[in-house]
């Protein structure tokens, strides 16, 4: 637990009340579904920068980056974070233009247009499962316990509940406006905190003098294969539904491109500071300022707790909350949209009015939150679940979306359907098999399944399932060709 001053509590309370107030203010202002789900497609460059950055960074990234930096050094930035920017660059110049050119509203919309309704439903299910806010709620539980000494479920209910209220009431408008405030808090607090942390450990030179020289090797001690695997996680940006939603909601392609190009510098700076502050925490441990028993993934929280003065600590905690709330709200809205717009409307009620669709989306948001809450409370293997959820969407939709967007002549119904279904079901089957029949390795923090001399780590599932999806796509093309001939 942290020793908070009244001022810190006041800042946190003010922040939470402000978020709810924004949601309530927007609650009666939605004129149609586009306005509720895509903010009327009016997002400008500064809003896009804010919402893209704040949504992409959740506690998992914040803690994951700092954990790797705490144990391995600058490789966390060079090997893990930096390759992601290459994918943002690709997205800015190759993907965004094509996505913005057509009048899509959701990721399954694309698959519907290229491959038909059945593919849409499979993709909507994969997207819904991927977007369940389980990890965000779990993160709130851990944060509530670490910071306030609350039970897990209390942290989830309080912080997750505030996020649910403003998302349900205000829709995407509330999400992007709160994202803009959350973006400012996340970035500014990290920048202001840096000098305080360096002062605590005796200056930047102490990092170089204290830490092992391997901490400053850009590729560290990691094998090239592990670096490639870390780097390839950036592929998710190419099929990330929250990213797509922001492209569809932009005023124009130029706004998206400019936001991504400016955002890369802010992303890079944010990642670097998280990396270097976690290394400062490691320095603090060696110097004896910080307890040696700290968990590597909480190193950033701990170093901030001992370095920041009254007021700034409250602002930092509000910034950490902001990091997770901006992720949770976006995924809840995507999951709600998957149920209402991607499944309910085309499958059950094609003539549903905008008012009805907004109402159903709100029900979907609530349902996704409840499912996320139940899983976060009663499912013990969170790390396995995280890998499962991360691999499910990329395995299902990466191949059909990329082929559909860039090679129009392969937009064949069977190709899209078999590819999406094969990716989805092989991911479910392989993950379940590894988690049930495999063994958990605490040092690696993962499950591994041994088949003879062959070992399959759970993190590597998508290296099997994406090729399966590709094979499914090719098989579908051959079936279509056979039918025609």
């Amino acid at each position: 637990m942290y020793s908070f001053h009244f001022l810190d509590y006041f800042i946190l309370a003010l922040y939470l009340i402000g978020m709810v107030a924004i949601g309530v203010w927007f609650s009666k202002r939605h004129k149609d579904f586009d306005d509720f789900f895509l903010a009327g497609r009016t997002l400008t460059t500064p809003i896009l920068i804010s919402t893209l950055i704040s949504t992409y960074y959740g506690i998992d990234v914040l803690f994951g980056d700092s954990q790797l930096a705490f144990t391995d050094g600058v490789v966390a930035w060079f090997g893990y974070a930096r390759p992601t920017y290459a994918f943002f660059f690709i997205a800015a110049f190759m993907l965004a233009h094509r996505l913005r050119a057509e009048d899509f509203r959701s990721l399954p919309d694309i698959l519907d247009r290229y491959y038909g309704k059945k593919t849409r439903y499979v993709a909507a299910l994969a997207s819904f499962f991927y977007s369940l806010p389980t990890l965000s709620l779990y993160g709130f539980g851990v944060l509530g316990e670490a910071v306030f000494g609350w039970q897990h479920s209390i942290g989830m209910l309080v912080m997750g509940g505030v996020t649910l209220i403003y998302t349900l009431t205000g829709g995407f408008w509330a999400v992007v406006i709160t994202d803009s405030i959350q973006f400012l808090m996340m970035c500014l607090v990290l920048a202001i905190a840096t000098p305080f942390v360096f002062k605590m450990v005796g200056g930047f030179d102490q990092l170089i003098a204290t830490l092992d020289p391997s901490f400053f090797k850009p590729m560290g001690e990691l094998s090239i294969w592990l670096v490639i695997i870390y780097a390839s996680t950036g592929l998710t940006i190419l099929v990330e539904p929250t990213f797509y939603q922001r492209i569809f909601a932009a005023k124009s392609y130029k706004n998206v491109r400019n936001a991504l190009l400016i955002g890369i510098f802010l992303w890079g700076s944010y990642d670097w500071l998280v990396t270097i502050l976690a290394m400062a925490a490691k320095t603090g441990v060696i110097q004896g300022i910080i307890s040696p028993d700290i968990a590597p993934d909480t190193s950033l929280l701990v170093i901030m707790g001992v370095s920041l003065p009254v007021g700034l600590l409250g602002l930092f905690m509000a910034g950490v909350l902001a990091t997770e709330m901006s992720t949770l709200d976006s995924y809840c809205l995507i999951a709600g949209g998957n149920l209402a717009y991607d499944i309910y409307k085309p499958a059950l009620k094609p003539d549903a009015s905008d008012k009805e669709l907004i109402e159903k989306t709100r029900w979907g948001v609530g349902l996704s939150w409840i499912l996320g809450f139940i899983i976060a409370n009663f499912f013990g293997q969170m790390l396995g679940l995280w890998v499962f959820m991360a691999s499910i969407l990329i395995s299902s939709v990466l191949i059909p979306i990329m082929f559909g967007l860039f090679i129009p002549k392969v937009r064949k119904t069977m190709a899209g359907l078999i590819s999406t279904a094969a990716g989805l079901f092989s991911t479910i089957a392989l993950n379940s098999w590894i988690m049930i029949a495999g063994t958990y390795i605490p040092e690696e923090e993962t499950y591994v399944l041994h088949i003879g001399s062959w070992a399959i780590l759970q993190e590597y599932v998508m290296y099997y399932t994406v090729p399966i999806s590709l094979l499914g796509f090719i098989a579908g093309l051959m079936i279509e060709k056979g039918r025609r001939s």
Partner: protein
Amino acid sequence: MSGWEMFTWITVLILGVGAVLVFMVFLMGLPDLLKQQDVEHHHDKILNNNDPATSTLDKK
């Protein structure tokens, strides 16, 4: 000052000043954005007579 330290202070500057600038531009554009939403809302009411059964998705 080492290259690492210099790079760190540059990122502090980019993140701190960048975030404030982006937020200020956002604030400057916010009244126009909300006004535009109000105008569209009013225009939409006149066009559709605020009929809740009307789906704008099918028209677009």
